[in-house]
């Protein structure tokens, strides 16, 4: 187990390093000058040049990258060009909000989606199952932005049950997490249903039924654990993406998460902030993947790592 862990850590470090090179190069290849954008179009070319020099952007790319790596190893990923604060705490301060939103959305999607998916598989020929599948497809096709504004208009503006936007209380969390959960809910219902249907057709399930085991136990002990492997993979990928920040939902609900911060930083070409945010996202993906791999071992006893 220890050897696996060390291998994992090394792999993750390599992934992070490669990601840092990619994002570093991509940002500097992208048209748009952070100094020009900060000073505005009324700035003289001399002022822009002076600002570029101050930010170290007039040095050669390899030199800039080496400086970046050198500070990064000390935990310093640079200073935000706009906010003039160290970028690591600046980006990390947005993480709890993103974590809360992602966690609640996934929670809603999983707690509602899996039971619906299972039931629509076990009662596959019922009307409810067809309706559920249809609604799931609808949920997957509904645009985030539209749904968010509709929910705000109905529940906040018209009914005054919930606040329109913002962060801080449970009421603030409800509409954004429902909006974000929608797509994932649809996806989970459909995948769960497909997987469960597939497993229900297997021989060992027939054997279990033949043994006289009650339906619920068959589903729980034999079917679900096998069906969940595929579902877990999907959830893992989605959670990784959500933890990188759900830009549209965060913008619509003024939710102070990573997504909105990152997109603003991209528009402003605030290189240090974008780099920090992207590396944080990569790190999260890596951690989640590792976690998912561990979960597979729990869920599927056939899975072994050597």
């Amino acid at each position, binding site marked *: 187990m220890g050897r696996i862990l060390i291998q994992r850590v090394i792999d993750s470090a390599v992934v992070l390093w490669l990601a840092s090179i990619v994002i570093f190069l991509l940002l500097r290849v*992208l*048209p*748009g*000058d952070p100094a*020009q*954008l*900060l*000073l*505005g*179009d*009324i*700035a*003289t*070319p001399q*002022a822009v040049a*002076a*600002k570029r020099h*101050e930010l170290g952007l007039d040095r050669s790319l390899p030199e800039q990258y080496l400086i970046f790596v050198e500070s990064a190893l000390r935990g310093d990923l640079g*200073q*935000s060009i*706009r*906010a*003039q*604060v160290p970028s690591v705490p*600046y980006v990390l*301060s947005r993480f709890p909000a993103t974590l809360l939103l992602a966690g609640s959305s996934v929670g809603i999607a999983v707690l509602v989606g899996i039971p619906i998916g299972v039931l629509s598989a076990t009662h596959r020929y019922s009307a409810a199952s067809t309706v559920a599948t249809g609604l799931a497809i609808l949920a997957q096709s509904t645009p985030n932005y539209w749904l*968010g*504004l509709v929910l*705000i*208009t109905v529940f*906040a*503006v018209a009914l*005054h049950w919930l*606040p*329109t*936007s*913002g962060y*801080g*209380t*449970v*009421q603030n969390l409800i509409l954004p997490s429902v909006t974000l959960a929608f797509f994932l809910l649809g996806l989970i219902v459909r995948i769960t249903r497909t997987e469960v249907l597939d497993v229900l057709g297997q021989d060992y399930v027939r054997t279990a039924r033949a043994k006289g085991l009650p339906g619920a136990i068959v589903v729980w002990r034999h079917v679900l654990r096998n069906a969940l492997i595929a579902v877990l993979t999907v959830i893992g990928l989605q959670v990784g993406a959500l933890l990188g920040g759900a830009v549209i939902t965060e*913008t*619509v*609900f*003024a939710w*102070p998460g990573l997504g*909105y*911060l990152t997109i*603003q930083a991209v*528009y*402003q*070409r605030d290189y240090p902030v974008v780099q920090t945010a992207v590396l944080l996202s990569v790190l999260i993906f890596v951690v989640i993947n590792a976690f998912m791999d561990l979960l597979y071992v729990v869920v599927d006893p056939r899975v072994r790592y050597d």
Partner: protein
Amino acid sequence: MTDQSRGRVRRAREAMTRRAFIRKAATLGAGIAGWQFMTGRSAARAATTAPRLKFGLSSPITTLDPRYSDTIQNDGIADTIYDQLLIRDFTTGRMTLAPRLATSWERTDKQTIQFRIRQGVVFANGEVVNAEAVKYSLDTVYQKSYGAVRAYLTPSIDAVEVVDESTVRVHTTAPDRAIITNLAALDVMPPKMGARLGRGMSTQAAGTGPYQVEEFVPSQSLKLHPYEKYWRQPKPRLGGIDISLIADDGTRTAALLAGDVLLVNNLPVDQIDRVRSSPKLKVLESVTSRCVYIGMREDRGPLKDVRVRQALNYAVDKAAIVKNILQGHAQVANSPLAPVIPFANPNLKPYPYSPAKAKELLSQAGYPSNFTLRFACPTGRYLGDRATGEAVAGYFNDVGVKVDFESPEWGVLSSEVFGKGPQSKYDIWLAAQSASSEDSLLRLRFHSSFNQRWMAYDDPEVDALIDAGLFTLDDNQARLIYYKAQERIVADAPWVFLHYVNSIFGADRSVQYTVRPDEYIFFHDTAIR
């Protein structure tokens, strides 16, 4: 049952009770924490007595240091925390200058302005406002080593001298009539705190303005509370101000409609009627100096010819754009300087809409219908920008000019048009420019030493007029010079002059707030009835 088993049962029961107890305690604790979390904020709010203003702002406040702020909204908020030597006053409808931390000013010679500093004003951290503080505040802007964003306002300053505790002299490299107006944009900041924190002033502030910082989360929210030692009348009338970022137009309007906020800026044009018709809300509006225009590279083929540029001005129905796209919330431009700016020329007429005249000029210039212009138009940066750009492209098509329309993201547009200059892939672009003084817009946009890279506009007579205007300290003479400069610029048509957009806010009817023509956000006189 044996003793052993009885003991086992007893221990098992105790263990269960322990487990049950722990479970109950945890649930109770979680319940209390949850309850506190949910009600905590409302309890805290109930404790304050004066009403707080909740303000939904459309763009993030990234820094509290006005010297490095990047948007006019950011500037404006800083100007509530800090005071300036003097301010731009629009109560007469046209900009004049009124004293603030400076009680008076005079030109002791052509290159020196002397300011008398108000005594008895204290910064929120206890430091005193005096000549040293003013010197510090100006030094850290005009001296290039600081890299301040606002340095574009002070190119002519070469020294700031402390004469005595209450007197400061500002020296310029040449006579400069605009520098006093430009100083209205510079804030007076505490020198000891500034020297100690340096760039740390981006997250901490101690000013002399009516509201000081209670809590600041960069790019997210800013809470202000009234400054009990504020030196001016009226004393701050709000219990506090909660500024939160609500970037999405729809959500910001919804927040106002639902009563989550009492004031929003940048109210989208298509929501104005909805807000107006609500019994609890009202629309607050002001004219501004923000001139929306189509910039043109004068070194590209047909655009070299002034008749072509004039034709493009005649080709566009500017009144129709104002009426239909901006719903009347703008005024057709007759000059790059809007009427609120001193020395805006009221005698100039806007180019009338005349496709016939446009075609005539084009054929006179030898281009009846065979050229294409590559056009970059931003989306969502200025009020109605995309729709206006598309309308303009349509009008150009009507007179035979083909348009390759693109809407790149602003960073890309800016790097092409302003960065690459002569190698820009665009021939024309849509943008807007506001004027902090009569000099700034004309100089930075039309003087050949500034605009060469992005417009290649070079008219020696215009250059001479702009320079002469700056050096002319007598108002009446300066007025004539500026009128002539605008006349010349409009005739040269380096831009298609479109319109001046209004600044539109939405508010609860109980809010007393004045929208400013310079688009700064001042809370000095704001109150909730």
